C-alpha cells in the first residue's frame, strides 16, 4: 500500500484569502491547520491566469505553450498526457469531483466526453491516452462534474434539475441573453455578478462537491491507493453563496482590500503607468478579457460594491474550508489519515479590487498570479513543516503526484516535484517561474510573457490590439508589493530588466504546432 492523495482545488482564489497567508476576511481554520502541519508556499504561480489553460497545466505538468491550451475555449486534446493516467496505470483508484474544465462548458452538441457523461448520467468513458493506449478518460475512473451553479451539461446541473428544480432560478445567471458574461447587478449594492441566493446550503455546489467526494471515498477499501481531485467551483464569480450564510461576513463592516486605491485620480494615474489595455478596460473602451462581463465598466465600481463582493467571496471561502473539514474528518475516521497527502491550491487568482478592477484577464500581477498552495505530506512520510519562499508553479504538481506515488516523473513533465523547504528549493534550482497569456477573439488580441525571479516580476508584450510590442511591466515586490510603480522604462532598472527579459526569452518552451483552435466561448 502506498500513499493516498487528496488534491483540493478552488477556482479563482487569491493568496491573501487564507488566514495562514495573512487573510483578514475569511476564517479558514481547516486549511490553516494543513499549512501548520505541512508546507506552505509563499510564491506559487499559475502558468496561465485563466481556467482551461491552467487546469491543463495542472494535469500535464506543462506550460500552456507545450500542452497547447492557449486560451479558454481551446479544448485539451483527448490524448494529451495526464499524470492521472500514470497513477491509474500504477493501480490507483482515481476520481475528479467538481470542476474539471478540460473541455468547453458550452457544448449543446454533446461533442465532448465530459458533456456526454453528464447528459447520460454516467461517470466514466474509455478514451485514447497519450501513449497510444486507451483507458479511463484522462486517467479518471470516476468523474462527477460541477461548475458555478446549475449551468451547462454537468452532473451537478442534472442533479439540481432532477432533485431540486425549485433552485434553478435561485442562482445568479452567469450568462446574459446574448451568452456573454452577465453584467447584471444584484445583492445589496447592485454590484455585477452578485446575487443574494436563497438556496439551502446543503444543496449549494460547495457542500455537494464535499458530499460526493465523501461518497466516493466511502467506496474505497483500506488497502487501496487512491487519487481524488476535489475541485470546488467557488470562489469564482458569480458571488452568490447561500443567503443564510451571509451574516458570517457583514459587508458593511469590512475594510477595503489593500490593493484598492480609493482615490480615483491616483488610481487612474497608476493604471496609466501600465500598458494601455489596463486603462482601456478600466474606462470601458476595450474589453480584452473574455472572462469578464462585456457590459461592465470597472470605473463604475464603488467602495461599497467592492466591500460586498469581498464579503461574499469570503463567505464562499469559509464554506469551502468547512467542506474540506468534513472530508478530512471522514478520512481520519477511516483510519487513513497518516497515509494521505493533502495538496490544496487554486487554478488562478482574482483581481479582487486591485487597481479598481475585478475578475481576471491579461494582467500579470499578484492578485491573479500569487496563489495559495499548501502540501500536507502524509504523516507517514515524516516531512517537517516548512514555509517555502522560492518560486514554484502549478506545473510542479504533476511531478509531485508522481513522486508521492513512487513513480518517476515523466519526461514530458516540465515541472519538478515541489520542494519541501527553501534549502531543497535552492539545491534543486527553483529560481524562476513563468506565466503566459495569449488571447485572440473577435478582432482583439493580447500576447504577453512573464517571469518572476529574485522578487521581481517582469512582463513583455508582443504586438496586438493595444500593443506595438515595446510595452512591458517591471515590479519590485520588496519595495512595491502592491505593484503600483511600473519600473519597465526606469533607466535605473534597465540592466536588471534586460537581464530578466533575456532569461524570460531563453526559458520559453517551444510552442505546440499546429496551434489548437478556439471552438467555444468557455
Amino acid at each position, binding site marked *: 500500500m502506498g500513499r493516498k492523495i487528496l488534491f483540493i482545488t478552488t477556482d479563482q482564489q487569491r493568496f491573501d484569502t487564507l488566514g495562514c497567508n495573512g487573510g483578514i476576511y475569511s476564517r479558514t481554520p481547516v486549511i490553516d491547520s494543513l499549512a501548520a502541519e505541512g508546507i506552505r508556499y509563499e510564491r506559487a504561480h499559475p502558468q496561465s491566469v485563466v481556467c482551461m489553460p491552467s487546469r491543463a497545466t495542472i494535469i500535464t505538468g506543462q506550460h500552456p505553450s507545450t500542452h497547447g491550451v492557449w486560451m479558454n*475555449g481551446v479544448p485539451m486534446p483527448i490524448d494529451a498526457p495526464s499524470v492521472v493516467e500514470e497513477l491509474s496505470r500504477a493501480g490507483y483508484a482515481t476520481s475528479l469531483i467538481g470542476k474539471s474544465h478540460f473541455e*468547453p462548458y*458550452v*457544448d*449543446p*452538441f*454533446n*461533442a465532448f466526453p465530459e458533456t456526454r457523461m453528464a*447528459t447520460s448520467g454516467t461517470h466514466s468513458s474509455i478514451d485514447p491516452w497519450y501513449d497510444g493506449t486507451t483507458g479511463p478518460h484522462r486517467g479518471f475512473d470516476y468523474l462527477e462534474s460541477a461548475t458555478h451553479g446549475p449551468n451547462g451539461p454537468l452532473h451537478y446541473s442534472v442533479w439540481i434539475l432532477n432533485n431540486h428544480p425549485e433552485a434553478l432560478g435561485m442562482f445568479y445567471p452567469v450568462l446574459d*441573453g*446574448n*451568452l*456573454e458574461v452577465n453584467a447584471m447587478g444584484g445583492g445589496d449594492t447592485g454590484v455585477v455578478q452578485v446575487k443574494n441566493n436563497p438556496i439551502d446550503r446543503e444543496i449549494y455546489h460547495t457542500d455537494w462537491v464535499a458530499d460526493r467526494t465523501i461518497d466516493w471515498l466511502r467506496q474505497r477499501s483500506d488497502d487501496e491507493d487512491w487519487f481524488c481531485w476535489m475541485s470546488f467551483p467557488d470562489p469564482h464569480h458569480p458571488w452568490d453563496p447561500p443567503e443564510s450564510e451571509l451574516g458570517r461576513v457583514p459587508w458593511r463592516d469590512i475594510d477595503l482590500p489593500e490593493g484598492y486605491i480609493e482615490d480615483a485620480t491616483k488610481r487612474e494615474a497608476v493604471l496609466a503607468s501600465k500598458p494601455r489595455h489596463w486603462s482601456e478596460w478600466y474606462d470601458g473602451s476595450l474589453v480584452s478579457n473574455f472572462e469578464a462581463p462585456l457590459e461592465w465598466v470597472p470605473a463604475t465600481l464603488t467602495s461599497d460594491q467592492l466591500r460586498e463582493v469581498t464579503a461574499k467571496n469570503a463567505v464562499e471561502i469559509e464554506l469551502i474550508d468547512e467542506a474540506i473539514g468534513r472530508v478530512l474528518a471522514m478520512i481520519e475516521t477511516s483510519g487513513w489519515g497518516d497515509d494521505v497527502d493533502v495538496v490544496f491550491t487554486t487554478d488562478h487568482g482574482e483581481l479582487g479590487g486591485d487597481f479598481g478592477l475585478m475578475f481576471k484577464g491579461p494582467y500579470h500581477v499578484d492578485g491573479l498570479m500569487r496563489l495559495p498552495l499548501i502540501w500536507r505530506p502524509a504523516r507517514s512520510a515524516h516531512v517537517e513543516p516548512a514555509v517555502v519562499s522560492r518560486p514554484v508553479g502549478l506545473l510542479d504538481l504533476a511531478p509531485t503526484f508522481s513522486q508521492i506515488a513512487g513513480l518517476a516523473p515523466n519526461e514530458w513533465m516540465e515541472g519538478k516535484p515541489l520542494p519541501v523547504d527553501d534549502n531543497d528549493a535552492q539545491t534543486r534550482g527553483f529560481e524562476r517561474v513563468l506565466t503566459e497569456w495569449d488571447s485572440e477573439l*473577435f478582432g482583439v488580441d493580447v500576447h504577453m510573457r512573464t517571469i518572476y525571479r529574485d522578487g521581481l516580476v517582469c512582463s513583455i508584450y508582443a504586438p496586438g490590439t493595444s500593443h506595438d510590442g515595446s510595452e512591458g511591466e517591471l515590479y519590485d515586490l520588496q519595495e512595491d508589493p502592491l505593484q503600483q510603480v511600473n519600473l519597465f522604462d526606469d533607466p535605473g532598472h534597465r540592466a536588471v530588466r534586460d537581464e530578466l527579459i533575456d532569461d524570460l526569452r531563453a526559458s520559453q518552451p517551444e510552442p505546440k504546432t499546429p496551434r489548437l*483552435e*478556439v*471552438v*467555444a*466561448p468557455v
Partner: protein
Amino acid sequence: MLGAVRYQITLPQSAETVWDHIGDPAEQAKWVPDFAETVVEGTTRTITTVSGLTFNEELLVVDPVLRRIQYRVDLPVLTFHRGTLDVIALDDSSCVAVYATDTDPRIMALVIGAVTFRALVELGRQMEEMN
C-alpha cells in the same frame, strides 16, 4: 454584436473532387459529425443533431460554379446568421475548404463555428481515406 469565426483546411485533392464530396446540401450529415440527419425540401434544410436538437436552415446559395454553399440558421437565439462554405482551388490537385460563421450575438459564432471546425476535421479524414 456581430461576431465571425473562420476555419479552413487544405486538402490534397482538386476542388472538383472535394466539391463532389460535399456540394450536396442534403448530404451534409455524411461529413458533419455533429449532424445525425439532414433533409432538404425546397430551400429549407432540416437538421437533426446527434445530441437530439432539430432546427431549420434556409439555403441561400448553392453554387457549383463558385463551389459555395451559404445558408441561414433559423433559431430564436440568433438575430443574424450566415454560414458559408467555400471550396477554393489552389492548383489542379489541391484546394482549401473554408467554413465561415457570422452571427449576432457574437458568442453564437463560436458555438456554431465549433460544428464547422469538427466538420472540416472530419472532411480532412475522409479525403485522406479517399486518397
